[in-house]
């Protein structure tokens, strides 16, 4: 059993296909935190996250048995995409979409309704814009970058951010304010605009 832990994901998949169920258990153990964190951050409810987590790995189990795993070297990403499809299915059924609106800033870069246009062309442009914004975020000072990522990419509240980073809520808010000011400056310098019309 111990030596199985040293196998790569691909070797474990092969072992599982050959009939060794323990290989599947190790894959679950190895990837459970990333996959669960992803689902939890998307749905924000532990009980629901537990259900989707189970369904995701059962789908993974089934797909591997049917020989439908062919993503060499990207096992975690593959499982997270399966989980994502189940999350979308869930919200379609519930007709309840967990949009996160940021009430703290009236001009929130990430909540612009224009960023939700649906044509493929617009989608591509928006993806490019978001990529640009993400690369600008990386250029911010570390404490500002941390707040932006926790708030916008991980959906944490300012109270949660303050607790995680050991600062007061006011400090976290202040860092976000400076981050937005800096981002706007960088966008002006690089002539990046978020309005696509």
């Amino acid at each position: 059993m111990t030596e199985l832990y040293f196998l790569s994901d691909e070797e474990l998949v092969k072992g599982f296909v050959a009939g060794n169920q323990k290989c599947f258990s190790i894959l679950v153990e190895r990837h459970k935190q990333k996959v669960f964190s992803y689902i939890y951050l998307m749905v924000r409810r532990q009980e629901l996250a537990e259900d989707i987590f189970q369904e995701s790995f059962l789908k993974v189990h089934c797909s591997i048995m049917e020989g439908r795993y062919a993503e060499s070297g990207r096992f975690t990403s593959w499982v997270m995409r399966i989980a994502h499809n189940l999350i979308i299915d869930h919200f379609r059924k519930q007709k309840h979409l967990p949009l996160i609106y940021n009430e703290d800033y009236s001009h929130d870069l990430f909540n612009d309704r224009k960023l939700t246009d649906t044509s493929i062309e617009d989608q591509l442009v928006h993806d490019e814009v978001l990529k640009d914004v993400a690369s600008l975020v990386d250029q911010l000072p570390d404490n500002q970058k941390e707040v932006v990522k926790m708030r916008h990419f991980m959906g944490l509240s300012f109270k949660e951010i303050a607790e995680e980073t050991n600062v007061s809520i006011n400090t976290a808010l202040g860092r976000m304010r400076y981050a937005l000011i800096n981002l706007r400056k960088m966008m002006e310098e690089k002539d990046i605009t978020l309005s696509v019309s």
Partner: protein
Amino acid sequence: MTKHLPPEIAFLNRKGRFLRRLILEFSDEELQRLTPSPLPETIKTLLKRAHDQGSSSMRKN
């Protein structure tokens, strides 16, 4: 064929892409500090269901 997604789904897809990329940059320990982990019972049930799923599929074959 152009496929039009409802704005909410498009939003979730974009959020999902960002999150998936970001999560790969974090270690499991860092993620444990930011989010809960799956319950041990969840893992146990999952493995049991997977085992049952495997056995029934083998019977079919």
